[in-house]
């Protein structure tokens, strides 16, 4: 019962450890640590040749709450909203202590910031629109994501798809946000309450986009609102989306759909406004070496044809001269 927050919530397991459920007896082999957060540690684990993400916590109640959220998603619709839940159980450690855990589908992908760096800015609009579609679905079922942040997002590809991976902060609309991260929290910036409503998620989403250009985040300073707007204005790559992001920061969008609509307008209007500022040299190289190749191939039939004509021409000329020679001889 006495969950001591003071103790490290990190749970260290050595590779190859078997985590076996007390209730359903399923066994998972620990492969490596994927990450750890405020209320648990996530490991990559394997069972019957398939890989899963396994989250363990000393705090049984937070596991139970997260499982409840994951179950709600599954009841409502298919797999698009977050990773699907595979198993829930308790593990009695060899030492005797009990840990709660749940197992979900393992989503393999790139961090959002890495993906944008490698594939270019034009992906921002596309990926954000995808996320807004998911958020709209989530909001329609009466929930708010809550702890929306770069760490909780992943781009799976191909095809590129932005997905969320941690549902710990998901909160019913109208309640107090369950879990948040200061930088993405509108309350922290003095820009609104911590009551769960769709605009709470849209604020956080705007912060996710801005943070792509401030990997180390920034302090809120004396006047948080001013700081925020100044930092937004300083990012040239976001000029096209500036007005939309500002609307999201000020809570002007009541629904994800409205914000998606605006982003779509911009994405359609400015196809090259954010050209290859950060495409990796490898990609470029691949492009430049492949281009001449294809041109060569295209040119090949034309050249072959000209050689034939050349041959015919020479033959005709030689024949012509030969005939003239014969005629002269005969005369």
């Amino acid at each position: 019962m006495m969950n001591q927050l003071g103790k490290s919530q990190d749970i260290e397991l050595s590779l190859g450890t078997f985590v076996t459920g007390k209730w359903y007896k399923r066994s998972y082999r620990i492969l490596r640590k994927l990450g750890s957060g405020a209320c648990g540690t996530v490991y990559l684990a394997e069972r019957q040749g398939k890989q899963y993400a396994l989250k363990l916590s000393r705090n049984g109640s937070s596991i139970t709450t997260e499982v409840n959220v994951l179950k709600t998603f599954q009841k409502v619709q298919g797999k698009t909203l977050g990773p699907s839940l595979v198993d829930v159980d308790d593990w009695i450690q060899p030492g005797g202590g009990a840990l709660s855990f749940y197992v979900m589908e393992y989503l393999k992908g790139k961090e959002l910031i890495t993906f944008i760096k490698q594939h270019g800015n034009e992906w921002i609009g596309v990926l954000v629109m995808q996320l807004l579609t998911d958020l709209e679905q989530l909001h329609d079922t009466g929930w708010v994501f809550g702890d929306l942040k770069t760490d909780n997002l992943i781009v799976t590809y191909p095809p590129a798809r932005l997905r969320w991976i941690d549902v710990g902060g998901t909160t019913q609309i109208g309640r107090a946000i369950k879990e948040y991260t200061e930088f993405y929290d509108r309350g922290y910036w003095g820009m609104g309450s911590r009551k769960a409503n769709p605009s709470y998620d849209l604020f956080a989403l705007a912060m996710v986009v801005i943070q792509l250009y401030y990997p180390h985040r920034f302090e809120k300073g004396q006047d948080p609102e001013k700081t925020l707007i100044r930092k937004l204005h300083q990012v040239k790559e976001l000029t096209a989306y500036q007005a939309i992001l500002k609307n999201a920061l000020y809570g002007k969008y009541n629904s994800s759909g409205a914000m998606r609509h605006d982003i779509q307008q911009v994405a359609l209007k400015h196809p090259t406004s954010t050209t290859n500022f950060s495409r990796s040299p490898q990609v470029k190289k691949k492009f430049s070496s492949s281009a001449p190749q294809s041109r060569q191939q295209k040119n090949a039939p034309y050249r072959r044809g000209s050689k034939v004509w050349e041959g015919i021409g020479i033959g005709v000329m030689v024949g012509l001269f030969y005939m003239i020679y014969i005629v002269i001889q005969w005369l």
Partner: protein
Amino acid sequence: MNKGTIKQILLITDGCSNQGEDPAAVASLALQQGITVNVIGVLENDQTEQPEGLEEVEEISLSGGGVSQIVYAKALSQTVQMVTRQGMTQTLQGVVNQELQSILGSGKNMEELPPDQRGEVMEVVDELGETSDLQVLVLVDTSASMHSKLPTVQDSLYDLSLSLNARMGKNRFSIFSFPGKRKAIDKIVDWTPELNAIASVFPKLTSGGITPTGPALREAMNHFSKKKRVRSLITRDESAREESGY
């Protein structure tokens, strides 16, 4: 289930008590009165090792049925609201466990239920956490070493009211500091639903040399009981929690 009021003392301190009775003993007394005690130990931002005095932090919260956390001053805001919420959940789980025991027989609690049923019980706990009324008495250590951290404490309390007022249930906060000028504690802010107006109060605090945590907790506890008696004369909304040991 009767939605009562959850009562909490939140003690924010940076060191060991050095005067008066054992704070852990007072904390268990408070728990018996239906008041849980959460404790936050604050470290300097450049402090690398945990000072010995802070061992007391865990002991007090364990005795007081609450949660504790030791943090750097910088991370205080998020911790204050987290500890308070976690403390509420813990109290509510205690209540729910008691209900379960009366239904399922002694020795049964949430952890012993299979995951599916546990999930259903947890939904009830979450629901109660969202809708219950809450009283938090914040007890701030203002001994000399805390002085530089007081502005951060002030910010984090404002942040706490922001978090809790997003809930559906009602909140009441009060702030006390210790050691007091004449008594064990001094009242900074009387019971109020919002902590917007605290900015003007905190800078005026003077800091003393001693840390009488035990006597301060006892005084704080008494402030609750006074409150309770006054309120029970006016309204009858007190829960059955006191009778059931909470």
